């Protein structure tokens, strides 16, 4: 009898240990990054562009990367949204939902969900070479949009699927067309979840390095056109972390810190924004 109770107790200890280990690592990570980042960050770091020779300890800040990451993430999320929302709607039973096509599309997107972003980067690179272009903002945007697409479609698919069938039928019974039902009823009911889906993908987009590695290039400046190369925060970290020069390292830590702050901010925003958006939705 007591052996079973002992086993219960041991397992509970093991569980709490495992949980603590993981949560503890999380806090360790936050601590290390905040400490290093706080030391490295300064007002000038955030608002100044690097003046060249960043790897060798040149002067300046990481504004190029901050602006670059925001451009990339906002642009890619918008591009992705343009394709993801219609695709998610298509997957609903109102459209292709019951046919084999939808099953196939869903499986395809499920598979794409896990494809590593470096594959998208390599592919984007192949395309750039084929077109004779250099790595640039546009290349990065497209590769990043590819990364965000499966994430967005799946989250949106779930959000739209929760809308009660009876609500849609009520709209159809009132002589709404499918478009009108989607636009005025379904999208409104699913709005909070849809916005969360977009923010989720955005968060992923700011932090992704592998897809922009080959496709977006890197530069000390802010791009002036879609065909200029663009810097990004993750790549700043990747390139500068291992320089022997302290100035370069500082920039890497600052970039990592800004990245972390941005991602956490997006996460918090997603939680905060749900309530006001849910004012009219039916529970």
């Amino acid at each position, binding site marked *: 009898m007591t052996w079973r109770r002992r086993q219960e107790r041991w397992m509970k200890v093991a569980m709490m240990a495992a949980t603590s280990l993981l949560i503890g690592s999380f806090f360790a990570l936050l601590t290390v990054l905040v400490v290093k980042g706080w030391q490295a960050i300064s007002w000038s770091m955030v608002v100044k562009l690097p003046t060249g020779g960043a790897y060798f300890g040149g002067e300046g800040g990481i504004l190029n990367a901050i602006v670059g990451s925001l451009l990339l993430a906002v642009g890619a999320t918008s591009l992705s949204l343009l394709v993801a929302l219609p695709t998610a709607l298509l997957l609903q039973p109102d459209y292709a939902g019951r046919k084999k096509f939808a099953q196939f599309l869903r499986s395809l997107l499920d598979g794409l969900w896990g494809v590593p972003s470096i594959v998208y980067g390599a592919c984007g690179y192949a395309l750039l070479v084929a077109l004779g272009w250099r790595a640039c903002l546009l290349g990065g945007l497209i590769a990043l949009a590819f990364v965000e697409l499966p994430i967005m479609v799946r989250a949106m698919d779930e959000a739209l699927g929760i809308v009660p069938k009876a609500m849609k039928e009520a709209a159809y019974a009132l002589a709404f067309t*499918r478009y009108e039902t989607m636009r005025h009823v379904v999208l409104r009911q699913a709005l909070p979840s849809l916005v969360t889906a977009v923010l989720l993908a955005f968060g992923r987009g700011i932090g992704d390095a592998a897809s922009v590695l080959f496709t977006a290039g890197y530069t000390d400046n802010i791009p002036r056109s879609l065909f200029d190369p663009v810097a990004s925060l993750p790549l700043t970290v990747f390139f500068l972390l291992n320089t022997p020069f302290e100035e370069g390292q500082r920039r890497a830590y600052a970039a990592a810190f800004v990245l972390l702050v941005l991602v956490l901010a997006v996460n918090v925003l997603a939680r905060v924004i749900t309530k006001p958006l849910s004012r009219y939705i039916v529970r």
Partner: protein
Amino acid sequence: MAKVMSRRLFWDRTFTVLLWGAGCLVIGLTGTLFTALFWRALPLLHRQPLSELLMGTQWQPAKEAFGFLPFLIGSLGVTLTAMAIAVPLSLLTAVYLAEYARPTVRLLLKPMVDLMAGIPSVVYGVFGVLVIVPAVGKLAAFVKTYLPSVPLLTPSAPPTGYSLLAGGIVLALMVSPTVIAVMDEILRSIPMSLREAALALGATRWETVRFVVLRAGHPGIVSAVLLGFARAFGETMAVVMVVGNVPSIPKSLFDPAYPLPALIANSYGEMMSVPLYDAALMLAALWLFLSVLAVNLVAQHFLRRVRRGWAG
């Protein structure tokens, strides 16, 4: 009235066309992706048979030696190490969160786990370089001194900490939140009545979990592990920063390794200067694409079956 009606029908039809367009676009783009990779990898495939490439151990692009074996083993090694650490930790944590934790504790911890899932890989990489690599380095030195000839453990070269193990630990940290989230969802979907029936028979909480809940959620749990595996196999940035990137087959946990994604990431600069180098890297990317896609599809298939099981 009729004019309004026809306008409404026009918008409805246009919208439907747009939706189908988007769907076909997605399919078309995926096909393009695959084709682009395959086409760029073709020059190499023409020169050397696939089996030779996959089994070759020499990686010297300048001499046109493209042996992928070290990278395949590196990838597999790092991923398996990561899963060996991540699966028990994730399972225990998921069971704790779903079965044992008090609602307030869960309310606090679950968002943290979700937050962890969103942290970019380079940030994990920084943590790896600053904390994990030195720690592993010290451990490696300890092992080398006191356990000079244990297979799989004793480092073959002076250990630097940049190793398979470091990569595995960092990957485990990265992959756990996702795996936990899926397992948690599975566990919470199992009806309370099942647990109550077991408890009523006098089982302890752990016995209920072990013999009833985990059995019921078995396919879902397996799916979660497979998803984690796929994610770890393809993860690039965090791994490349800590794993050492030496193109030889690692013989111990403390040896450096060179997983496929890291290879692709590191070779970025030199790709175009050496003939066939880019074809080799595209082949590596293609291999990654297909293997991860395959594992993912299998995992998703089971996951959908489990989810549909509840609705039915």
